[in-house]
Structures are given as structure tokens and as C-alpha cells.
């Protein structure tokens, strides 16, 4: 018994002797409690009929009503389809491109060209989403946008791209690639530079061509990094860069541009339908989180790489 008290005293002393460290943590931890865990606590209103006067706790329970209303609504299918298809297409098309770019940069022998290509492809990452979408608007405009001027000179009539639902995904993903491929390639380039040069030499002696060396040395060398980034990407699967989608949306392309997150914004912030929107957002987060757990577990088993 006295042993336990002594232990407890010792632990207390250890904690007290670092009181200045805890003091430093006071502000950041309070921030996490209020702005990260506070909203998690607020998620309960997904199961309630939120009333601002009664607050998170006082509002009346309604069970799964908000969820069933969403699942049975006629736009549920469309929202889910748009969210999933934009995510999946991004993953299939936009994810591999930075890897390709990094492999390309790694193969450039001229140092100037190498540096130029890297620095130039970083630039668009620093341009704001509003400006990027503004540029898309200018370039794709049916009167005077340079894409349509090119089409016109080829004898094709102007296309109002941003008003066509069928063009939305292409423009969204294409401009994402343009904006982010350089930035996303940084980490692969760094990983490539860490590969042991003797491996390349050995492959060379074995008669491997440049392409074979990429496939059998470079790619396996950065495989763990690819897996980690893939997991992180899938952890954001349902969020699909919705801020940009929101900027690109108009009434004419809504059919293919409305995703779960933009719907939550529209319905929650603009219409003030808090409980219902929270339920939809929670549905989104749960799928997201489940996907993350699933892919992480799968990667740990199959590729022996994982986030935790």
C-alpha cells in the first residue's frame, strides 16, 4: 500500500516538475478541445431536432429520422454517385500522374532542365482556388476564351464548357492535375533520391534498360511512399475537394457537380437546416473513416506499410 502511494507520489512529482510544459500546452489543447472535439460532441444533433435556443444538449431526440429522410430523398442517389465517381476518377487519373512526373524528373540528366521543371510545376499549387476557377472561367468562356478560340479555328463551334454537366468532371480533374502534380511529386522525388545507387549499377550490369531500371528499381523503391499517400488520399475520399467544386458550380452543371459536401453547405449554412445537414455530413465522415481503416488494414497486411 505504501509502495503504491510512493509510486503515485513519484508520478505526481514527475508531472509537477513539468508544469511549465503543461502550461505551454494549455492554449493549444484548449483549441483542440473546443474546435476539434467540440464539433464531434456537436455531432449528436444529427440524431436530434436542433433548436438554437436549447443547444446541442437540450434539443429533442428524433433517432435516425434525419438519416432516413436523406436516404429516401430523390437526390440521395445522385449525390452519392457524383461524390463517388469524382473521387474514383481522381484516384485513377490524378493519383498516378505525380508519380510519373517524379520518375521523369529523376531521369533528366540536364540539371538546369531538372530544376526548371520542378520549380515551374510547383507554381500553380500556390494559386488560390478562386483564381484557378476564375482562370477556368476565362479560358473556357464561349466568347473569347482561348480554348474556344482554338476550337473555332479548327471549325468547331464554341462550347460553354462550365455550363455542361458532361464536361464538369473532366475540367475539375484536369485542372486539379495541372495545379497539383508538381507539388505532389516532391515527396516522390525525395524518395527516389534516397534509393541506393548501387541498385541501379547492379541492374545496369545485369543488362537492364533504362525503362527496366525504372520498373524494377525506381518503382519498388518508392512503393512504400506510394502506399502511404494512397491511404491518405483514400482517407479524404468522400471530401473530393469540395471547396473547388463549390466555386465551379452553377445551376446548369449542378446535375453532375453537386456532391455530398456542397449539399451540406447549401442545405446547412444557407438554408439553416442544421440537424439534417449534420446527419448527411456524418454519413459522409463515417464512410470516409471506414474506408481509411479498411485500406490501412489491407495495406498493413498486403504491403506491410500503414499509417499506424
Amino acid at each position: 500500500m505504501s509502495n503504491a502511494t510512493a509510486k503515485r507520489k513519484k508520478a505526481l512529482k514527475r508531472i509537477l516538475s513539468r508544469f511549465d510544459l503543461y502550461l505551454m500546452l494549455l492554449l493549444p489543447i484548449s483549441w483542440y478541445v473546443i474546435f476539434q472535439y467540440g464539433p464531434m460532441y456537436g455531432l449528436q444533433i444529427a440524431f436530434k431536432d436542433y433548436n438554437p435556443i436549447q443547444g446541442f444538449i437540450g434539443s429533442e431526440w428524433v433517432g435516425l429520422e434525419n438519416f432516413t429522410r436523406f436516404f429516401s430523398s430523390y437526390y440521395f442517389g445522385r449525390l452519392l454517385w457524383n461524390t463517388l465517381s469524382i473521387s474514383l476518377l481522381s484516384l485513377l487519373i490524378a493519383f498516378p500522374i505525380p508519380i510519373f512526373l517524379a520518375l521523369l524528373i529523376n531521369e533528366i540528366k540536364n540539371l538546369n532542365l531538372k530544376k526548371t521543371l520542378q520549380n515551374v510545376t510547383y507554381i500553380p499549387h500556390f494559386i488560390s482556388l478562386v483564381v484557378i476557377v476564375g482562370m477556368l472561367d476565362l479560358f473556357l468562356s464561349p466568347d473569347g476564351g482561348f480554348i474556344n478560340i482554338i476550337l473555332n479555328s479548327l471549325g468547331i463551334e464554341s462550347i460553354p464548357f462550365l455550363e455542361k454537366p458532361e464536361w464538369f468532371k473532366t475540367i475539375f480533374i484536369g485542372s486539379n492535375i495541372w495545379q497539383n502534380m508538381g507539388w505532389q511529386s516532391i515527396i516522390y522525388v525525395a524518395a527516389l533520391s534516397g534509393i541506393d545507387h548501387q541498385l541501379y549499377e547492379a541492374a545496369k550490369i545485369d543488362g537492364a534498360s533504362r525503362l527496366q531500371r525504372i520498373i524494377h528499381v525506381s518503382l519498388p523503391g518508392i512503393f512504400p511512399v506510394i502506399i502511404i499517400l494512397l491511404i491518405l488520399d483514400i482517407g479524404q475520399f468522400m471530401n473530393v475537394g469540395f471547396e473547388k467544386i463549390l466555386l465551379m458550380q452553377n445551376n446548369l452543371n449542378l446535375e453532375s457537380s453537386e456532391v455530398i459536401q456542397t449539399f451540406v453547405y447549401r442545405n446547412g449554412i444557407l438554408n439553416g437546416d442544421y440537424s439534417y445537414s449534420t446527419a448527411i455530413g456524418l454519413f459522409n465522415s463515417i464512410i470516409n473513416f471506414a474506408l481509411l481503416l479498411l485500406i490501412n488494414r489491407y495495406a498493413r497486411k498486403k504491403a506491410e506499410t500503414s499509417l499506424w
Partner: protein
Amino acid sequence: MIQSSSKISDGKMFDIVVVLISAVILVIVLYPLLFVLSASFSDPAKVMNGEMWLFPVDFNLDAYAEIFKNNEIWIGYRNTIIYTTLGTIINIGLTTLAAYPLSRRDLPGRNLMMFMITFTMFFHGGLIPTYLIVQNLGMIDTIWAMVIPNAIATYNLIVMRTYFQTSIPWELQEAAMIDGCSNIKLLFKIILPLSKPIIAVLVLFYAVAHWNAFFNALIYLRDDALYPLQLILRQILLVNQLGGTDAAGQFGMDEKILLGQSVKYALVVVASVPVLIMYPFVQKHFVKGVMIGSIKG
């Protein structure tokens, strides 16, 4: 060693293909940027009928003159500078206050705290509950809504903590502690001076995020006197409202529409240049920052 001639040409072919693809990528990335820049200095009529394709045609500064006359843009600029400066100071302050103690291996309970913090990267309460919290705190339509809800980016916190742990020898910290150095002194006199590169990267990350942010302003601000530049840009570029000074008196309707187009090009330039100027200074530290961030703590 003598290589066969076919092998040499193989390698050369490969190099040529590499250079060609690089050139194509360079053109694809650069062309839109140069086009915007040139269009902002050109006669808008020539831009719209396709006469300008790379260099400015009929060089003029009308669009920039129009921007300088516009009050909203100046207010937006001023607000953005305030939000970016104040926000980045808060960001760096809070991130350091969290990263330093959490980097100390002698801190009881640090693993639990780290887990709680990392968890927020993968799961959060979402848009509406966050909005309601900010609303309940009375931050709607105040400058605080622009700087407090995003006071810490967990990713950056992990980057900084990992840097403290891996780049600053623990022995150095222990030695200072034995000499009777307090934690505050240790942080300011030893750790921070040794961490300049990572602080530079985080300042860049945070400042760029503030400069480019529009969503928080969109949901938390109603009063347009508080609007940051990005919201003003959104109105002009995407919602097509060119307010402020009235150009209609000086120009006919067609001319006004045309000028509106070139104002958009000029706005893209004016809004992006400050960030692009900043980036060469910290660019050399990027890779380190990104690499450290990929290591999970």
C-alpha cells in the same frame, strides 16, 4: 567496356523522349500563366478575338488602372493582409506551444495527447457542428472567425514536432536542463534558433493558406467591409459583379464589358503575385518540410 551501338542509341532515344515530355509539361503548365499575364496588359478586344496568343498586343495598363480605382479590391487586400499577418502569428505561436512540449520525451501523457491530436486528422465533426460552435462563441462576422477556427493545422504541428525530435539532439536539451535552463528559455534560446528552416516553411504554408482561403470567409462573414480579397475576387471573377467605381460614365456598354474581361485577367495577376513572390525565398526548404511531414509520429 565497349557498349554496342544499338545500346547507345537506346539510351539516347530515352533521353530525347525524357526531354520532349518535359518540354510538353513545361508548356502545359506555363502557357496559361503567361497567357493571363499577357492578356492583362493587352487590348481586351484583341484577346477576345484571338489575336493575342502569347505576348501582349497593344500594350496598355487600363485594366490595372481600373483595379487601382476600385475600392472593394483595396479593402479586400487590406483585410487579407490583416488576416494573413495576424493568423500566421497565431498559427506559429500555437503550433510551437504544442510542438515543443509534445516533442519532449520526458513529458508524461504525451502519447495520449499525440493520439488525440492525430485522430483529428482523420475524423472531425464536420461543417455544421463547427459552424455552430463558432456561432455560439459569437465569432460570426468578426475578424476572429478568420483566424481562430484554423489556428492549428495538425499536419504542420506534426512536421514541427518531428523536426524538434529529429534535428535537435536530445543531449543538447538535457545538457541545458542540467545547467538549470528553464523550458521557456530552452525553447527560445536553443530550439527556435536552430529551427529557422522549418519555421520558414511553416510560415509559408500557413500564410499561403490564409492568403488563399475563401471558405471560412464565405460562411462566417456577412459584412462585406470584412471580406478578404478572395471573396471580392469570387464576386468579380465568378459572380460577375464589378462594383466600386463606376466605369459606365467613361465607357460605352461594350467597352465596359471588354474592360471587365481584361480586369479579370489583371485581377488574377494582382491576387497571385504576392504569394508567388514569397515562394522563392523558402522554396529550398520545401522538400525537407514535406518529407518530415510524411513521417508519422
